[in-house]
């Protein structure tokens, strides 16, 4: 699905009681910034490649970590990856992130479900990982 089309559809959609706000970021690679209603702090950035649609939310910068916890944090994240529904942890540049990837052929319902789940997971993750933050 084209990001412009996704943005328009999301504006009129309510999934599990939650609405969406989105706008397209300018740049070489089109990115749609999406805020799930009630999750203003955790915007989701969606970008589309040939095969997949990537939904990414940034959790914290490497610089925000307490000293010497990196190894422990990374191990925790690897362990949490499987139980966490639909999303996985990642490091992009210097930012710990949470993301989900979908097939480009996913239905709009699937995408909406992914976004709501990712926003939930992002907040859960932030709360869970607070002890590692300086």
């Amino acid at each position: 699905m084209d990001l412009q089309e996704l943005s328009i559809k999301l504006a009129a959609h309510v999934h599990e009681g939650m609405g969406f706000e989105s706008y397209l970021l300018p740049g070489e690679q089109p990115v749609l910034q999406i805020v799930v209603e009630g999750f203003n702090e955790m915007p989701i950035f969606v970008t589309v490649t040939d095969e997949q649609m990537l939904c990414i939310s940034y959790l914290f910068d490497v610089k925000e970590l307490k000293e010497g916890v990196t190894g422990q944090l990374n191990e925790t994240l690897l362990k949490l990856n499987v139980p966490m529904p639909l999303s996985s942890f990642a490091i992009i540049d210097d930012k710990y992130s949470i993301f989900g990837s979908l097939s480009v052929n996913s239905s709009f319902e699937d995408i909406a479900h992914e976004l709501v789940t990712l926003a939930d997971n992002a907040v859960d993750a932030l709360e869970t990982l607070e002890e590692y933050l300086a």
Partner: protein
Amino acid sequence: MSILSKIFTAFKGGAREVGEAIVDANGIRIFEQEIADAQNALQSAKKNLTEVMAKEMQTKRKQSALSESIAEHEGYATQALEKGDEALALEIAEKIAVFENEKVELDEVLATYSNSVAQLKAQVKEAEKTIKENQRQLSMVKTTESVQKATMAVNSTLASNNSSMSSAKASLERIKQRQADRADQLTAAKALENEETGGDLKAKMAAAGIGESKSKGSDILERLKAKKG
């Protein structure tokens, strides 16, 4: 070297500029060329395969026609023998021999076709595997690059929009505050509802054993006993 290990090496190097290509344009072209070559190979293998399979079927049809002719002529030969015409029977038997030889020759032809079919099917499989594998590798390159470009776009947006740049701790505080607000609102709403319906007072009275009480079996029994007595 697989793309994943190239990406790994690039990340391990660490000195890479953001946005620098993991695999240069030439590398991507090589992948695309390999996919195109494999697609061509796949096309011609499939074309040959259909041709050979058609020939194989024709040959099998010819063979069964021969088998029928053999059976037919065996019948004729038997009839000739029954009529005591040994010479005719021999002539027919010679004809049967020709058919049988032809059938054996076709066996060899058929074996060659079957071999070709197996080979071509293997080629088709191989080409399909190469295409899929190269596409998977290419997809990794393209995804990595898209994410890098997307990250640049996101970073420049975040940088020009201070509110989204706040630390995770600050975000967490705001999230918690909002959750607390929502919980407070819910409690307040519930309290208000209780007040409006008088549920609160009723609950207090019920706890103190005042007000309307539901009739219980034991009460009724007491009443009946009192009446009787």
